[in-house]
């Protein structure tokens, strides 16, 4: 046989095999990548169950309980979810090690909701080079919405910059002559907010923002910063701080009888773990923005979505502290994954999971605010980009005004 003949035969047989494969899939339409089968879908996850951010570990536990409920209800298109979750202690090197283990040894289909900006940054290149979906990451950094450079990574919650832009829009409209002081945590989280605010104010930023003050997480109290900001004569205080410092700020401004309009980041808007410790008296009139319902807020007692959430907690996580926002978060993001996997049908390849994650249309998980919808597309990898302004009154947040969109692309 000549070389040309050999080639021809090879080409012909390839075509036959390809045809057979195509027609086969036309009958069964079942396609799997590693980690999925007729009976099971393996989902990997890393969470800080120990270490400085271990408070968020409850998110992983909520997701595990949620998938147990889904399995008890028959699973997804007949397949059970096997949720494998490891502790990364909020440490990037450990995150890399655990994700490698998930991929190489547990052979998961996707890595779902890994938590923390540092950990996600550490595993992003690895997962993208192996073409494994890094689905619905649990961080509000803006950089996850980058479908062009990192087509295997997608965010979930509104980015910090989107949120900050909404505050800027609000101030430009309602208080155009505001003298703004910004207090922010000196890290990626705080700086994202700072940038969003300044970008959102645009040309006005130079005249409106009269003070920018940063604090370090290691400081026991931030009293000194508040005293300094009060001296600037600002009448709006943006609080871009984590819960403990957010509560300290609200309490301290009341103690020194400084009464600016306070705007609190959504990260620290929890009734149970920020406003209550800061004192309800001190918290009156504080503004914030929200995208999810607050489990400690009685206004949702008769909400059908939150009733499902409560029923889930009572059965699968008895004794859970309902004021913990992580329970609302974990439920909502787990529901989004289940929706995505349902949309995949019998085509459980990684490419299709990613395609479906980027094709969510007006999806409303039970725990999101009415009107806030999840939308993604091949170029929009920021599932939630809407928030609504809210004002603290009595012992709860009162939502007001329209649902704003603060889309920021990278």
């Amino acid at each position, binding site marked *: 046989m000549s070389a040309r003949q050999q080639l021809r035969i090879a080409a012909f047989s390839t075509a036959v095999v390809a045809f057979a494969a195509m027609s086969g899939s036309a009958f069964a339409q079942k396609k799997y990548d590693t980690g999925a089968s007729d009976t099971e879908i393996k989902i990997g996850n890393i969470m800080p169950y120990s270490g400085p951010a271990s408070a968020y570990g409850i998110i992983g536990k909520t997701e595990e309980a949620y998938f147990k409920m889904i399995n008890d209800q028959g699973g997804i298109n007949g397949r059970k979810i096997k949720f494998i979750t490891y502790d990364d202690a909020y440490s990037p090197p450990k995150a890399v090690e655990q994700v490698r283990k998930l991929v190489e040894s547990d052979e998961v289909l996707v890595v779902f909701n890994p938590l923390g900006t540092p950990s996600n940054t550490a595993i992003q290149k690895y997962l993208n080079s192996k073409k494994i979906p890094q689905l619905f990451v649990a961080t509000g950094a803006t950089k996850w919405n980058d479908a062009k450079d990192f087509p295997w990574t997608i965010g979930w919650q509104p980015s910090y910059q989107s949120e900050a832009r909404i505050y800027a829009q609000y101030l430009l409209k309602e208080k155009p002559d505001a003298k703004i002081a910004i207090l922010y945590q000196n890290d990626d989280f705080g700086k994202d907010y700072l940038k969003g605010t300044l970008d959102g104010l645009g040309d006005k930023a130079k005249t409106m923002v009269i003070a920018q003050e940063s*604090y370090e997480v*290691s400081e*026991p*109290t931030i009293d000194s*910063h508040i*005293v*300094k900001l009060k*001296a600037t004569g600002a009448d709006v205080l943006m609080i871009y701080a984590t819960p403990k410092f957010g509560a300290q700020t609200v309490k301290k401004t009341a103690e020194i*009888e400084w009464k600016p309009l306070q705007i609190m980041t959504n990260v620290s808007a929890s009734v149970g773990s920020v406003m209550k*410790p800061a004192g309800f008296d001190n918290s009156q009139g504080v503004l914030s923005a929200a995208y999810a319902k607050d489990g400690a807020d009685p206004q949702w007692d008769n909400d059908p979505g939150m009733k499902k959430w409560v029923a889930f907690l009572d059965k699968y996580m008895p004794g859970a502290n309902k004021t913990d926002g992580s329970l609302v978060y974990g439920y909502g993001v787990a529901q989004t994954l289940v929706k995505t996997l349902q949309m995949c049908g019998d085509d459980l390849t990684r490419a299709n999971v990613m395609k479906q994650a980027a094709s969510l249309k007006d999806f409303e998980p039970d725990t999101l605010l009415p009107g806030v919808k999840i939308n993604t597309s091949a170029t929009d990898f920021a599932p939630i980009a809407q928030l609504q302004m809210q004002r603290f009154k009595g012992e709860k947040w009162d939502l007001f005004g329209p649902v704003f969109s603060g889309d920021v692309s990278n």
Partner: protein
Amino acid sequence: MELFTNQVLAGIATGAIYACMALAVVMIYQAIDHLNFAQGEMAMFSTFMAWQMMQWGVPYWAAFVITLVLSFVGGIVIERLLFKPLAKAPILTNVAGFIALFAIVNSVAGLIWDFTIKQFPTPFGSAPFLGSQLISTHQAGMIGVTLLLLALLFFFFRFTRIGLAMRAAATLPESARLVGINTSWMIALGWGMAAAIGSIAGMLIAPVVFLEPNMMGGVLIYGFAAAVLGGLSSPLGAVIGGFLVGIFENLVGTYIPGAGNELKLPIALALIVIVLVVKPSGLFGHTVIKRV
């Protein structure tokens, strides 16, 4: 000028937090000649116990006293179970023990009470103190309690038999044993007292920084710094050191443009190093002369 006064006052208020913790640090140093890295976590745990009792309906002062007693006993138990066996071990082994204790106490507290911040009541109220908007009655009360503790400690170490015995056991264990002092129990007593003082510090600090398992992380670093600055062997020095660190930190943050805010802790610590170079035993510490 007003900003200056305000920052000094705010510094004194924060300094009271450091001073309180520094007292506990000095207490343990007097007893065992080491710094206990788990000191802050033990104080945090005590505070959680007080909080839990109040959740169960125990009134503030009852919870305060019970916590004090429990912490004292707890400190002794920890010493008997964990550190007595390590007494003859090299110092690094002890340090490893302290760090292990730190991690264990922190995680156990998180497991029992979770990591969301909790409000802790204050017996002094939080209205402005004497019309000043910068110091609340709580912070004024805290300064008062710190000074009272200081006076008690001074009296204890200077005038009581047991206080004198403890000092002897820490500085000259051999001679102390020869005159019939049970040095081993003196060390246990030191642990108990340090734990009790720590619990007071915790209960005073919690209303300001809020109660959560990591609440003492930053405070302990400043407490150490204050104690070292004032002199590890002097309770008075520790308290003054605490106030100095608090005030200095605020002034650096306010008046050094640009870097001040981000570098205020390093700059404050650098100052401490300079003081120690000039006066190695701290501002108020006395030099320990060891015979070779």
